[in-house]
């Protein structure tokens, strides 16, 4: 059932989640408690499609998507950092706002409800390298993928290096772990957090671009469909480490790609659509630490009667 050809769809569906979760790493590590990835991604998909539609250039579309993601995060930053709002409530409201505003603007600008798909929307450039596309397994990695896929994979290592090896990375981690101490040694906590939010917005916007201009070339209401929250789960699961995020994103990508494959079989498509979401819960439950804790608990119970 599973062949090597599943690599290509895994990469494709993993990329938005990975980009978004990498953005989340910055937010999370700097202690902003951001949960607006869903909204940033959704606005990113919308502005990306709008940019591409009106200019006919995919590059402008991507830039617009980035701008959209950044705008959402700036709005969140204003509420959270400037005005001291509650992170869960504000984040939730911002997500809800994003759904509302994209639906509203879709109707206002394009006079359609539901889905916008038009030949004027220019999709992203897809890689086709003449020689490599004939090599058995490697061809799945390099054929028909957008450049954002490689950018996402590259960003995993860039993020790891930034967090581990640069002064800025130290500042980010300090702000997240102990903002008071960071402020004492002269780190501008709020400025660092603002920068992190902007980076999050950029990466979430790119994730949106991959969804709306790479995997599909259309926008539909609420097209992100919880992937932002899956990214949030990936961030929580991996304790906001770039490599951990890559692993969890791979797992979710696999679940989704496998679900897409199963849709060709006779199993009810509704059951299959549940798979990625169920996978998130399953992975949350089956975290290695939790299992260790469980083992310890069971071990304690066994020992107790002897005492």
């Amino acid at each position, binding site marked *: 059932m599973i062949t090597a050809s599943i690599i290509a769809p895994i990469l494709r569906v993993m990329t938005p989640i990975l980009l978004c979760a990498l953005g989340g790493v910055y937010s*999370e590590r700097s*202690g902003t*408690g951001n*949960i607006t990835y869903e909204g940033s991604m959704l606005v990113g998909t919308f502005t990306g499609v709008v940019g591409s539609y009106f200019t006919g250039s995919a590059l402008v579309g991507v830039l617009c998507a980035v701008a959209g993601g950044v705008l959402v995060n700036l*709005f969140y930053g204003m*509420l959270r950092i*400037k*005005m*001291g*709002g*509650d*992170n*869960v*409530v*504000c984040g*939730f*409201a*911002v997500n*809800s*706002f994003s*759904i*509302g*505003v994209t*639906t*509203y*603007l*879709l*109707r*206002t600008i394009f006079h359609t*409800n539901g889905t916008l798909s038009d030949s004027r929307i220019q999709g992203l450039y897809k890689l086709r390298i003449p020689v490599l596309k004939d090599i058995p397994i490697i061809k799945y990695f390099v054929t028909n993928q957008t450049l954002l896929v490689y950018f996402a994979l590259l960003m995993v290592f860039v993020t790891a290096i930034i967090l581990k090896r640069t002064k800025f990375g130290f500042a980010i981690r300090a702000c997240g772990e102990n903002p008071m101490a960071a402020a004492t040694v002269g780190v501008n906590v709020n400025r660092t957090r603002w920068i992190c939010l902007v980076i999050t917005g950029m990466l979430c916007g790119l994730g949106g671009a991959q969804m709306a201009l790479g995997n599909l070339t259309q926008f539909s209401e609420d097209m992100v*469909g*919880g992937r932002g*929250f*899956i990214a*949030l*789960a990936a961030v*929580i699961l991996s*304790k*906001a480490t770039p490599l951990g995020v890559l692993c969890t994103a791979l797992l979710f990508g696999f679940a989704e790609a496998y679900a897409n494959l199963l849709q060709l079989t006779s199993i*009810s498509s*509704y*059951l299959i*659509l*549940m798979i990625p*979401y*169920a996978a*998130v*819960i399953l992975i*949350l*439950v089956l975290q290695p630490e*939790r299992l260790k804790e469980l083992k310890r608990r069971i071990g304690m119970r066994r020992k107790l009667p002897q005492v």
Partner: protein
Amino acid sequence: MNFEFRQRKIKPSIIALSICIGLVLGTVFVLLGGYNVLEVYSYLIRGSLGSVSALSSTIRWTTAFLLCGIASGIAFKGGMFNMGTEGQLYMGAISATLVGIYCKGLPAIAHIPLCMLAGMVAGAIWASIPALLRVYWNTSEIVVTLMMNYIAINFTSFLVKEYFLTTGVFGDSLTTDELAATARFPVFGGSPISFGFILGTLLIIAYILFFTKSKRGFEIKVSGVNPDFAKFSGISVNKVRISVMLMSGMVAGLAGAAEIMGVQGRFLSGFSPDFGTSGMLVALLGNSSGIGIYISAIFMGILKAGSLTLERSAGVSRALAVVIQALIICFVSVKTLKVFDFKKKEGSGKE
């Protein structure tokens, strides 16, 4: 990683101010869309309060928001952010529908409570999973409940499509058979909708009494505001968290049952226009107090009914209501608005 949710006291003046800000920013969006502001607002009001049919539409939406708002409010009081009311609502709706269709021959007086009970039990079961995971496994209830929403929506669609699809004229839409007549809400004052509203009103009274008069309500409040303090004063916070989620799920399931029994008459896959989120907005806006939830549910009902009329007659997207709601909530939880809180300033001046 701090995704803990704590209920915070919000003053009515701040809520009023946020509503003003939300409406002003909403107006900006109306202007951006190139619509006539006066026309838009007059449609909003006429469509919600202007006629008898408009009023019944408002009551119809208010009922759903009220029940969902209570569901979210209970969870907020106990310090849990139940984002899964939508999923619990779907599970409640489907089980109430099935009981309503297949338990034939009962008198209405037994059938209606049975359907509601089925909805409540299903909602509670669906809510128990994230609650147990949160308490014994320490997984974020926010993420789990969110994921379970998507699972519930797909799961109910699957059930309807594979097992309970109606045979008849409905074409592509996934619906079940119609409920037995004995399972529908009785008609009060011209429409069956008002029964749900009365139900919601009674629940609100019960909600207020529960949180002001009863010991358990007090325990829930304390563990929501300060879990550590609650632990030291001998309250089992874990138990409170589970019970809060169960109650929240029950009411959400009841909301689903009421929607089916009062309005829809049959289970239609994907019938809810995100009642769960609206319920959370209601509870946040109402600061989870009984009267607050009641008033904000009516406010949201007016906004929703008005925006539907607005879309039908002026072609403005109904999502405008969502934009305004979300903007209001954005500002409700914000601290700096308290600068404008005149009463507080006067008070501190006297000291």
